[in-house]
């Protein structure tokens, strides 16, 4: 008998509370989530439901108050700052709502940024950058600065930057939130193709049902708890 496959991302009994003055805001409460390898998960919920906080915990940008966050073999919640930075560089690709490209760098220099933390030489880095830009169909715009690119193109550069190190998990925070429908569709198709054709595990936070429809699974977060159905 084959053992059941282990999830790639395993969130167990995670709670997170923020303080605002004397007030305590319980953002996540005893949260449980498992994401399998090569899964495309859409995380939906109203504003303030804790979607971004959860994404930050998975991406090692923040730590839970209680519970564990395990990605592959790594207990992310137990790593110190230095280990966490190195772990992010190796395992996580971030795609942000507002692209977050460095405006003074060209598209290819932006994509190269995560590779600066690797031991690759200049030629190898260039090879990886070209491959990543080709994957998002932006080879011809590699020398362009972000301000000369459309929103959709900027987001594609953002995706190229996220995938250039071939990370374990791609975390997307409202990747189509700042785009029109057409550009958004292109980005979603790109993410879908990365998931289906390259087996990339993607966790995407979104408000947009149209975007979440592209995912292989949708979970809803409300008042700090997850469910498979949207709350009323």
């Amino acid at each position, binding site marked *: 008998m084959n053992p059941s496959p282990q999830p790639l991302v395993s969130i167990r009994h995670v709670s997170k509370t923020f303080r605002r003055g004397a007030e305590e805001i319980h953002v996540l409460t005893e949260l449980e989530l498992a994401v399998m390898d090569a899964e495309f998960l859409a995380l939906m919920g109203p504003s303030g439901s804790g979607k*971004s906080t959860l994404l930050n915990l998975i991406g090692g*940008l923040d730590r839970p108050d209680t519970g564990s966050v395990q990605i592959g073999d790594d207990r992310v919640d137990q790593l110190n700052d230095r280990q966490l*930075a190195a*772990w*992010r*560089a190796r395992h996580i690709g971030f795609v*942000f709502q507002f692209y977050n490209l460095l405006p*003074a760098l060209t598209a290819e220099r932006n994509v190269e*940024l995560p590779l600066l933390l690797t031991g690759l030489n200049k030629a190898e880095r260039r090879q990886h950058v070209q491959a990543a830009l080709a994957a998002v169909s932006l080879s011809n715009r590699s020398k362009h600065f972000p301000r000369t690119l459309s929103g959709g193109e900027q987001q594609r550069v953002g995706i190229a930057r996220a995938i250039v190190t071939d990370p374990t998990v791609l975390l997307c925070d409202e990747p189509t939130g700042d785009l029109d429908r057409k550009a958004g569709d292109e980005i979603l198709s790109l993410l879908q193709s990365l998931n289906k054709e390259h087996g990339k595990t993607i966790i995407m936070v979104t408000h947009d049902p149209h975007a979440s429809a592209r995912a292989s699974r949708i979970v809803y977060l409300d008042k700090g708890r997850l469910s498979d159905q949207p709350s009323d």
Partner: protein
Amino acid sequence: MKFLPLLWAGLKRKKLRTALTFLSIFVAFMLFGFLGALKEALSAGVRMAGQDRLIVRHKVSLIQTLPESYLARIQVIPGVAAACHQTWFSGIYQDPKNFFPNMPVIPEEFLAMFPEFVLSDAGKQAWLNTRTGAIVGRTTANRFHWKIGDRIPLRSPIWGQPAGQTQWEFDIVGIYDGAKKGTDTSQLFFRYDFFDEARNLEKGQVGWFTVRIAHPDQAAEIAAKIDAEFANSPYETKTEPEGAFAQGFAQQIGDIATIVMAVVGAVFFTILLVAGNTMAQSVRERTGELGVLKALGFSNPMVLVLVLLESCAIAVLAGCGGLGVAWLIVSTGNPVPTLLPVFYLPPASLLAGAALAAVLGLAAGALPAWQAMRLHIADALRRGG
């Protein structure tokens, strides 16, 4: 090296602001270079002073003269190896603005006392053979395009003119150089015997004596002996090391070193505030970008170093640029040879300036870099987004 584009991107993000910051630091260090040359000029006399030389002058002031006969009495004081005298002539060449120091001396004693003045054997011989002969330093010779064989007329408001003549005339018989950089080669020396014979007043009086002592560690003791020798006479003396004498001379126009340091200090404090504010502003504006770098895996120390490097790059490039331009301008020549006999920017000042630029960069970038390092990623992304 691979982080260079990132560094460069930070600098060119706000080109005008970077340029203005660069310019302010550039100008500050150019000023530092000029002040360094000025300080060197004013302290050269002290620095170049012989450790084994004392100056004997009138106790009241340098203006008062001393009997030339003191020379023989000084020479026999135990511990004195040699002695010679000089007298302020204050000769004017054509126009008072053409100032350069000129003094009557006894050639053999004088040249033996000051080996830093390098004169050819032929020049020395010609000087000994010519009563109206004078030697002049390279700086002044170049300044007035004098050459050996030229006859130089000087008017002296102190000593008048020789009987039957309207001015003093000297024949240039030699041009001396300095043995090392910083040696004052702006002076003209002529023969005391000619001077004493031709002058109409205070015959037999001289300005001051320079004394070489056998053991520099006995300077205080020998100085006291010399002053004791002439105590209770109409011409009491004050003996001090040559360095202290030069220092006193320079301090006639104030404590230049202190003034220079105060100006430099004020300028640097202002520049530090400007550069620090610029860096802090730059980091504040890039909160989101720094958050992204951290999210991508740049560690806190790396972000700290990046911000510090950026700050240091502006400071060092602008600082060295300013020092370089100051050096170039100073190298083109002395703008006020009448006031400053020596004018150059010493390598030590250049090195000190470069080090100061690096310190300025570190100091200006320290707080912003610390803030950047401590940025919480999620907050930075939220603020920057």
